């Protein structure tokens, strides 16, 4: 059963279309990440769900109740929506201590004092801040402030939790810890989470479902695997997992495969519906491997040593393609080497 449904959501500022006809159904207890480059409309979408921005058109509903319905002129104020939200800047109130910050949503709901204390402490335990009840913001690190914000968003047991780039201000190591903690909290509390990020790694590692946006529109919705293995177009292929995009030509099609011409060589790949003769072949850097007697040749123009693996940039005809090998393949720059493409995906655009 779907909890959150966004139907035909469009946001225009005068003639600028910021979000264009956004349609999505988000299931209960799912962690969905909206990902895209900055300015793609992902934060606007999240803020429309929260109620800070009113859409120009469309409907947003939770469990069949409209949060906003432009056809019926319904708009629910953010404070009525029972949604938890963690802001990019954390937005922990500097004039209240940690306990006051976290208990505030309960205070507004006139929860009695005993229950308020119990549930606040529970939320603080969940984010490992039970020892910081009386601390103030300026005494906390960025990561701890983040946890306060998370506890505050969770304390009233919302049906929906919105995360607005919550990890972007944290350092790499802390980001990884928080990612798994958020995931764990989600499993424990069975809360639906919508996360917004521009970081594709974060989108891929945390999410049950990923929504990829560009220039205000949804490009693709799917599980991380689907998106990685079957990108809808070259934008997705490049944005998620940074693929090589090589021009190719369709030669023959069979029932399950298709034969394409790449750099003058034939290559058999999985069949995709197409009406075009020319397409783009998306090849992951690790699907390009060295092969001594291959007819495909490339000149190494750059070599980036990464410890357990090496990234090579190969000049092949007019194009530069990236190849990732394990560290045992060690070639000097300027060498011309043979390589093969082990897997590729046909893209129409």
């Amino acid at each position: 059963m779907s909890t959150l449904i966004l139907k035909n959501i469009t946001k225009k500022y005068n003639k600028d279309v910021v979000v264009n006809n956004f349609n999505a159904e988000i299931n209960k207890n799912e962690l969905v990440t909206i990902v895209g480059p900055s300015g793609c409309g992902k934060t606007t979408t999240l803020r429309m769900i929260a109620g800070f921005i009113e859409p120009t058109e469309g409907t947003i509903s939770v469990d069949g109740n409209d949060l906003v319905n432009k056809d019926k002129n319904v708009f629910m104020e953010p404070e009525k929506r029972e949604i938890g939200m963690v802001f990019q800047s954390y937005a922990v109130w500097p004039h209240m201590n940690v306990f006051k910050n976290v208990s505030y949503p309960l205070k507004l709901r006139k929860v009695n004092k005993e229950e308020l204390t119990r549930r606040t402490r529970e939320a603080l335990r969940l984010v490992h801040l039970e020892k910081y009840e009386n601390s103030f913001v300026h005494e906390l690190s960025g990561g701890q402030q983040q946890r306060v914000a998370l506890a505050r968003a969770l304390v009233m047991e919302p049906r929906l939790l919105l995360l607005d780039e919550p990890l972007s201000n944290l350092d790499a190591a802390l980001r990884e810890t928080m990612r798994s903690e958020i995931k764990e909290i989600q499993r424990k509390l069975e809360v639906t989470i919508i996360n917004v990020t521009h970081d594709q790694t974060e989108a891929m590692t945390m999410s049950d479902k990923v929504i990829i946006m560009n220039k205000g529109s949804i490009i693709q919705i799917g599980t991380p695997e689907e998106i990685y293995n079957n990108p809808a177009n070259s934008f997705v292929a490049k944005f998620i997992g940074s693929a090589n995009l090589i021009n190719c030509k369709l030669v023959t099609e069979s029932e399950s495969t298709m034969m394409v011409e790449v750099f003058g060589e034939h290559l058999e790949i999985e069949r995709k519906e197409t009406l075009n003769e020319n397409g783009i072949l998306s090849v992951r850097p690790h699907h390009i491997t060295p092969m001594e007697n291959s007819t495909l040749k490339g000149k190494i123009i750059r070599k980036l040593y990464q410890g357990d693996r090496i990234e090579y940039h190969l000049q092949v005809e007019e194009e530069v393609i990236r190849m990732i090998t394990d560290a045992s393949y060690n070639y000097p720059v300027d060498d011309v080497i043979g390589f093969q493409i082990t897997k590729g995906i046909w893209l129409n655009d």
Partner: protein
Amino acid sequence: MSRINHSPKRLATTSFFNVTNIVWWIIVILVGFTVIYPSLVLVVKSFVANEEFSFANYYAIFTNPAILKSMINSLIVVIPSTIISTIIAVVLAWIVARTNLPGKGIWQTLLVIPYLIPPFIGAIAWTYLLGPVGFFNKWLMNLFNTTEPLIDIYSIGGMIFVMSIYGFAIPYIIILPTMKKINASIEESARISGASTFRTLKDITIPILAPAILGGMLLLFMYQMAEFGAPAVLGAPDQINLMTTQIYYTILSSDMPNHLQVAAAQSMLLVLLGIIGLNIYSRFTKSSKYVVVSGKSGSAEVTKLGKYKWIVQVFLSLVVLVTFVAPMLAVLVTSISKVYGLPVSLSNLTLNNFLKLFELSYIQRSLFNSFVLSVTAGAVVAFCGLIIAYMTIRGKALGSSLINSLVAIPYAVPGTIVALAMIMTFSKPVPIVGWQLYGTFMILLIAYLARFMNLGVTTLSGAIGQIDPALEEASRISGASKARSFRDVMLPLLRPSLYSAFFLVLIPALGEISLSALLWSVGNETIGVSVFSTQMEGKVLLTAALAILLLTFTILLNIIARVVSRGKVGI
């Protein structure tokens, strides 16, 4: 999750919207009544002579010799004093920010104290030193064995001197932060590129500081053109008038045809000058050059003073002596003297002057009036400033940015002009409601509100601008209404700034002179008016006692302000 009430609510009907709307419209009306209406009247009347449209008033100001003279006098006084003040300010800012001067903290406080002294009090103080029977003049006369006073403070030179002393605080306050913020790496990169210390100063440091220095200088120029108190005190005996004092006398010369309208035309010149100045100033402050210094506070290399340390200390002591110690001592000694002009001795000391102050009913009234006026103006301005700033920045309310720029006008133009606008607007009963405001306490209050409203708006705009909008949004999403979020999040965070705004109005309002000098009436005197009139009547000892009283209040309030605003206001 069962506690949730899902019933959706229609937009724009919550009670908060209604309350805000009412409050907002009250403020719009208040600003309209105190600022917009009088401004329009002033502009329109400047084009009216003998009840019909004409340029006669403008013709009059360029043909009347006294008025022409006042324009020239203004430039002769203001240009040199602005330059002198700015030079002093740059040197002082450099010493404080960029040298290893010992006891910097104390010097920093001592150097900005003159900012607290109302310039007309400073001017009065210097008459006790450099007037015909002033302490310093007498000492010089003894020294050179003459019977004629060597220095005459009641002159153009005297005005330049006093205005320079009480003006340098403005550019100093603007230049100092920039001077402090210059990032060491900017200068170090010049040094590493091969520039000498001097070349670095010439090619890097001074160009970076230029916008701040020029900006401070420009602001001071406008401030000095608008100054009324000091030139009024020093120019009165010999009828030396600057533009502001000339406007004052034009307003008072009721035998002159269309005198108010001519004064309005004169005012328009100063207003025009103010608008041009403010425009250039805002261009300075928005100049991209500021980007270089807006980063983290600098760790600039300080210049080691070494053997020059003592010279610098003597220089600073001299500045403090001239701006503060000597004049204030002169006022203090005068205020406890039995007879003015006699040498200081124990037999000439008394506290009677202070006692006499409280025997005079108009002085008692003026103390009471000034307190009521200042406290009311401070509170109203802080509250309106909060609402106007919030509505402009967060609410984007109808007409809010217009209101925001309109309230800047009465603060940017000389107080004398604000007073003139009030006289012209309220000398007849207000249309429709029929209130007779001229000659009442209310006209003073309206003038004070119009004059100081800008302080509230700018203080709170600055504060609100620094508060992350997400703090309020976090409260909304937690379940608080707009009103509740404002109360629980914004108000506590803005409290120190509200106090700041209150005191920023209270302190100058207490010693206000340029508005009060024209708008007072019997029964509605202010402290400034009392000081001014006792001075004009030659009651030197009473004036000094009253000045001491005013200074004591100012300093006490400053200390209180500093405490309650957590260091945001006050010295």
